[in-house]
């Protein structure tokens, strides 16, 4: 064996050991992180199958999964279905509006040269720095005067305003990376501006659209503050707000509440998983050259 290859062997061995050491440490950190993240979720799911005394006596015990009484009371004693529908409606309309309006604004900012384009982008950016909750009192007065207090539109308006800045930011950056020649080609093919956006740009923007959707979905679905202020009628309440019904002034039925939380978290978790998979697919298939 020549000295050169012997040297290479020695180097490789050291390399493998080094890699193992580094990767092993990484694995430990990742596993610890996973446990930390999953722990509250597991406790939530477990507690949903327990009664109040069970929760306080054996908080970590594995429950009897056949005991569905909490779920049955969520279903029968509350307006759960109504709340779920309200949440789906408000979140759905908000996300759709954010994506449609955000993409259109981003397309204009990224592609058309007009006076004030960069100012408009900066204006949207400024929205990222504003905590909307500070404006709660003026918003309340504004919505009262507009007559949309105690309707879903008050929530949609706030959520769209909250979601637009980041969406415009993400989409503008993404659209700028797409080759202009694609749009020119579509223009030569006779496509209208709207058709170019719909048939050429939107399919290519899917990864960025999904990032924006995920980014906005969770905070809107889980939001408690704005429904609490704007919605008083029980039939219009969203899930997080509605679930507080189990929190009594003196006693709280924790089991039922955790069961409700589990049900509330389920759809968003499923959507999240589906979207992330889509997003990863999109990342690898959008390549141009």
């Amino acid at each position, binding site marked *: 064996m020549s000295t050169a290859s012997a040297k290479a062997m020695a180097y490789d061995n050291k390399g493998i050991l080094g890699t193992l050491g580094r990767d092993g440490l990484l694995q430990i950190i990742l596993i610890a992180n996973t446990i930390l993240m999953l722990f509250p979720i597991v406790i939530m799911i477990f507690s949903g199958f327990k009664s109040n005394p069970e929760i306080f006596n054996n908080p970590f015990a594995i429950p009897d999964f056949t005991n569905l009484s909490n779920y049955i009371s969520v279903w029968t004693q509350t307006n759960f279905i109504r709340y779920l529908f309200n949440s789906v409606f408000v979140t759905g309309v908000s996300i759709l509006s954010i994506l449609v309006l955000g993409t259109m604004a981003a397309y204009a900012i990224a592609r058309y040269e007009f006076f004030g384009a960069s100012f408009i982008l900066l204006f949207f950016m400024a929205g990222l720095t504003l905590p909307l909750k500070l404006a709660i009192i003026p918003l309340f007065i504004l919505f009262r005067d507009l007559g949309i207090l105690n309707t879903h539109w008050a929530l949609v308006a706030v959520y769209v305003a909250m979601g637009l800045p980041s969406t415009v930011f993400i989409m503008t950056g993404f659209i700028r990376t797409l*080759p202009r*020649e*694609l749009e*020119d*080609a*579509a*223009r*030569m*093919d*006779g*496509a209208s501006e709207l*058709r170019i956006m719909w*048939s*050429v740009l939107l*399919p*290519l923007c899917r990864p960025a659209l999904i990032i924006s959707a995920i980014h906005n979905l969770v905070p809107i679905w889980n939001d408690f503050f704005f429904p609490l202020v704007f919605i008083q009628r029980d039939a219009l309440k969203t899930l997080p707000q509605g679930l507080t019904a189990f929190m009594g002034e003196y006693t709280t039925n924790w089991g039922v509440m955790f069961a409700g939380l589990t049900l509330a978290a389920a759809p968003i978790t499923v959507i999240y998983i589906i979207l992330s998979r889509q997003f990863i697919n999109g990342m690898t*298939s*959008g*390549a*141009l*050259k």
Partner: protein
Amino acid sequence: MARLSLRNVKKQFKDTKVLHGIDLDIGDREFVVFVGPSGCGKSTLLRLIAGLDPITEGQFHLNGQLMNDVPPSKRGIAMVFQSYALYPHMDVYENMAFGVRLMGLKQTEIDARIDEAANMLRLGELLKRKPRELSGGQRQRVAIGRALVRKPDVFLLDEPLSNLDAALRSDVRLEIARLHRDIGGTMIYVTHDQVEAMTLADKIVVMNLGRIEQVGSPRTLYETPANTFVATFIGSPRMTLIKTSRDGNRLGLEDGGSVVIEDLPNANANGTLTLGVRPDALTISRDGEEGFAASVVYTEYLGDDAYVYARLADGTLVSVRTHPNALYEADEKIRLHVDAAQAHFFDTQSGQRLVV
């Protein structure tokens, strides 16, 4: 039928003037190549013809109709882009169908046209593939196919070969020439490569700094270049320009020898004269007092030819085509003789061609 005429066409981006008044006529079924160094405005001119950028000033007529404000898709023009610009999310069939669908054609007609284009370009096997699953040459063919199915009067090709490797380039070049013969449309082709221009064109338009330097057939441009720019741009290796001082029929270089040429242009008697010589127009001798003195820099051996690069007394680098068996050492002193029949003469100040 497609006749294009450009009259005093100007283009300005904000404060930057890109085209300074282009006058050009293109006839039916002509293969026209716009050639020039990068930044000369050839691609901009193509985009004006396509309608992708508005014309700042002047008129563009197609078949006698003013096209300045007609949208790109209504001009009967199709374009092949430098990056091909295939829609990445559509398969080959969809890429070709996109435009014809928007034209409002029936499905049977669409299928027939795509079939025809696919046969002509050997794309039949690839119709269900996405662009990312294709090789460079295949993508190129799809891009041409997408233009073909629209059955345009005019094809625009923007540096279509620049993304291909050298071996593929000559194949696709032949293919484009064959295509032009078969479908017979008017083609306008932009390139910075003068070899592509020479091999493909019926008519070459040489551009520089937003102006047309000369329009003519490849032979015209090669044999009678209008000025020093065209002279050095067309032909490879390029023509050497030697700035000489004239004394009667003798063109000389200071301390660098001289040549005698019987018929010299009338202008500039006893003044200066720029002599243009291609590698073929020079012969080498190893001794004697006649001819330009030069010292060899290096010899390029190409098998059936060899090019000797030599430096004149004033520092000009000259290329000379010689027999491949002739060997010249670096720094060897040689004498260069000019074949008068192949010499070109230019005004030293203006760079314009002088006629004998």
